């Protein structure tokens, strides 16, 4: 609203203030929320539009087409940045003119034919009607067509042909196009902005970018189809219980945030480099205070030496301040940091040059030649080490960015995400979910349309504004099988086998189940909470507690993500039936009762 008022009052704001006003406007006024992105899921040869109102669930092995409505996109951008409306008005007119001029060549060819037949006449008339329909349907073209015709008929055109009139009209439309293109160029300079479409896969194991055909030049991840019919126990499941402890430890480590990891990384590097610079300060001080050296020094040499010492001391202090600030540091502006690193590298290079000059000056005094060479070598080694560290940190950082969840910063870094204007943005992009690497039921696919406003300053990233975001949840839709391992608590039939010790009512036993499950396209509650399964259970009980497991098999029903289970089995070894239930929670909790072997 504020922005609109300013626009009406013709108050022009600098770019940075435009951004602030955009946010103010965004907070106060209701922004047009028309749907720009249309998501179509293609699975098993069928296509389905994922409506905004429906559950945002797609098949985990499907293909996703993301279509962009240019009209809605432009409306959305103009509603946020009214200053851009002029650019879009020009673009709209240019597009209309180009469409009209597409008829020019073929229409004029028809008109210039001296010999005509019925077929070509029919073609010409149909084309002419199409052209005039295009003109009538566009307000700008329609008004220009009227103006140009008015001008054409200002003089008497008696005896002239439709060909003459058409040539006159097309000539004028061509001129219009040239003028508009020039005007658009000048307007665009002030209102530069681009569009990008990005996609991310999000889950508890870390986020990852997803290749969107037509919108980025990323390569696809390893091709992975989530298997619908699983009938064997994976290695992971075999080791599941045994590894829970170390797994939890790993997870805990992974939960360090990216900023914590970076702080840790920088602290380690910077503390070690500070020590090395401190040693150089001491070395140069000792050299300058040495009485033997002082006797050989000219006044100019002393001044040069002190200047060098001051520079190294200053550099040491800069590193010191930098390392202390890291502990309080919030990582929000990675590019500023990159600039700081660059500055530290430049300063180190400058000191190296000064050191070289100093060494060359002192080397003229034979008695000091060896000592100064040694100092120069130490200083150079130390500064080379620091430069190497500061040059390598951004690379390490980038690697961390890929693995971790700070995907917003990732958007800023990536040059592989293509930029488009509204005039050349592709109509649709395609995501092959099978090409997005490993994924599991419940993983999210985030698709986001971004408006990028280039910074006026070099090395500062684009301002990125989210125009529309869709979050899809991936699931295996329809029937599937799963193997689940866990612990069951079994209650054998008291009337059966005599070998069973009935002092105890329940026995613990590891088990594996082959479950039939159904993924729903319409219910998050079912997929993520109820998640019922029915199937076969194989259990390794030890009812006679002799230490050798018995084999039992039967039916099982599970629910709530396999946390609860209930079933009936038959112990084939002891020929006794039993019922069981299971609470599939971490079973390596200390103190959990297990069967004692007699």
């Amino acid at each position, binding site marked *: 609203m504020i922005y609109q008022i300013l626009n009406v009052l013709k108050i022009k704001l600098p770019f940075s203030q435009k951004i602030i006003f955009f946010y103010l406007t965004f907070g106060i006024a209701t922004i047009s929320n028309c749907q720009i992105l249309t998501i179509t899921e293609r699975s098993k040869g069928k296509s389905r539009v994922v409506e905004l109102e429906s559950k945002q669930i797609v098949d985990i092995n499907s293909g996703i087409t993301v279509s962009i409505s240019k009209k809605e996109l432009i409306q959305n951008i103009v509603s946020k940045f009214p200053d851009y409306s002029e650019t879009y008005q020009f673009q709209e007119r240019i597009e209309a003119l180009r469409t009209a001029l597409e008829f020019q060549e073929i229409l004029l060819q028809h008109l210039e034919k001296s010999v*005509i037949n*019925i077929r070509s*006449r*029919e073609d010409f*008339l*149909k084309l*002419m*009607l199409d052209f*005039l*329909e295009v*003109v*009538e349907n566009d307000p700008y073209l*329609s008004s220009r*067509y*009227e103006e140009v*015709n*008015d001008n054409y*008929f200002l003089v*008497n*055109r*008696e*005896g*002239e*042909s*439709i060909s*003459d*009139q058409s040539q006159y009209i097309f000539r004028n439309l061509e001129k219009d196009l040239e003028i508009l293109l020039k005007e658009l160029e000048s307007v665009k300079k002030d209102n530069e902005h681009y569009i990008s479409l990005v996609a991310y896969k999000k889950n508890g194991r870390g986020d990852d970018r997803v290749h969107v055909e037509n919108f980025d030049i990323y390569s696809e991840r390893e091709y992975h189809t989530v298997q619908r019919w699983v009938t064997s126990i994976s290695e992971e499941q075999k080791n599941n219980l045994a590894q829970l402890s170390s797994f939890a430890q790993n997870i805990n480590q992974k939960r360090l945030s990216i900023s914590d990891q970076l702080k840790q990384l920088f602290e380690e590097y910077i503390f070690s480099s500070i020590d090395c610079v401190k040693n150089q300060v001491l070395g140069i001080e000792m050299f300058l205070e040495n009485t033997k050296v002082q006797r050989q020094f000219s006044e100019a040499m002393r001044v040069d030496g002190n200047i060098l010492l001051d520079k190294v001391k200053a550099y040491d202090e800069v590193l010191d301040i930098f390392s202390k600030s890291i502990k309080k540091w919030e990582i929000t502006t990675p590019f500023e940091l990159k600039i700081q690193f660059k500055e530290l590298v430049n300063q180190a290079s400058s000191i190296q040059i000064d050191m070289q000059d100093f060494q060359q000056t002192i080397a003229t005094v034979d008695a000091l030649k060896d000592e100064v060479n040694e100092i120069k070598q130490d200083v150079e080694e130390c500064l080379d080490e620091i430069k190497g560290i500061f040059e390598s940190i951004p690379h390490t950082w980038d690697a961390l960015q890929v693995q971790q969840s700070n995907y917003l910063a990732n958007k800023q870094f990536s040059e592989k995400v293509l930029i488009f204007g509204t005039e050349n943005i592709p109509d649709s992009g395609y995501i092959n979910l099978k090409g997005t690497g490993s994924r599991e039921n419940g993983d999210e696919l985030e698709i986001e349309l971004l408006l990028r406003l280039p910074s006026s300053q070099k090395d500062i990233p684009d301002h990125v504004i989210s125009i529309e975001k869709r979050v899809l949840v991936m699931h295996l839709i329809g029937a599937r099988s799963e193997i689940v391992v866990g612990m069951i608590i079994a209650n054998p039939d008291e009337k059966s086998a005599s070998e069973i010790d009935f002092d105890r009512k329940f026995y613990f036993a590891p088990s594996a189940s082959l479950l039939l499950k159904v993924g729903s396209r319409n219910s998050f509650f079912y997929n993520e909470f109820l998640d019922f399964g029915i199937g076969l259970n194989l259990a390794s009980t030890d009812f006679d507690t002799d230490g050798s497991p018995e084999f039992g098999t039967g039916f099982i029903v599970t629910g709530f993500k396999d946390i609860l289970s209930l079933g009936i089995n038959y112990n084939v070894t002891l020929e006794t039936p039993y019922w069981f239930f299971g609470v599939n929670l971490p079973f390596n909790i200390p103190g959990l009762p297990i069967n004692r072997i007699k």
Partner: protein
Amino acid sequence: MPTDDPELARIIFQSFIELEMMILMVILGDTETIRQALPKADNLATLMDHNMQRWVIWVRNPIILKDEFERRLTASESENADAPYDEIKCFCFSPLNDLASGVILKNGTLSYSSLNRSFFKAHLHDISNP
């Protein structure tokens, strides 16, 4: 066209419609928009298209030839030809079969593009339906 002599109007119309190789545009009514459109239709009628002539007749009082025009409009299968006569403000007769085509309704605009379309539709009508 005369406004108060139906017989004379019919004779004049008949003399035009009998001519071959001519697209006849009929503009019905006498309003401000009609008067603004007449010079445009007139201008377009000056243009030749491979010996095909274009003529415009202005029927200021549409009632005067209502029966004749309604009969011809009813006989046509062109778009909007079945609209009530009172709703029509412009149409053309095709050059050979004299069938009504290129109908412009009263809620449409009479611009260079719409009038030109009306002429071309009438022309195409006879080629597509010989």
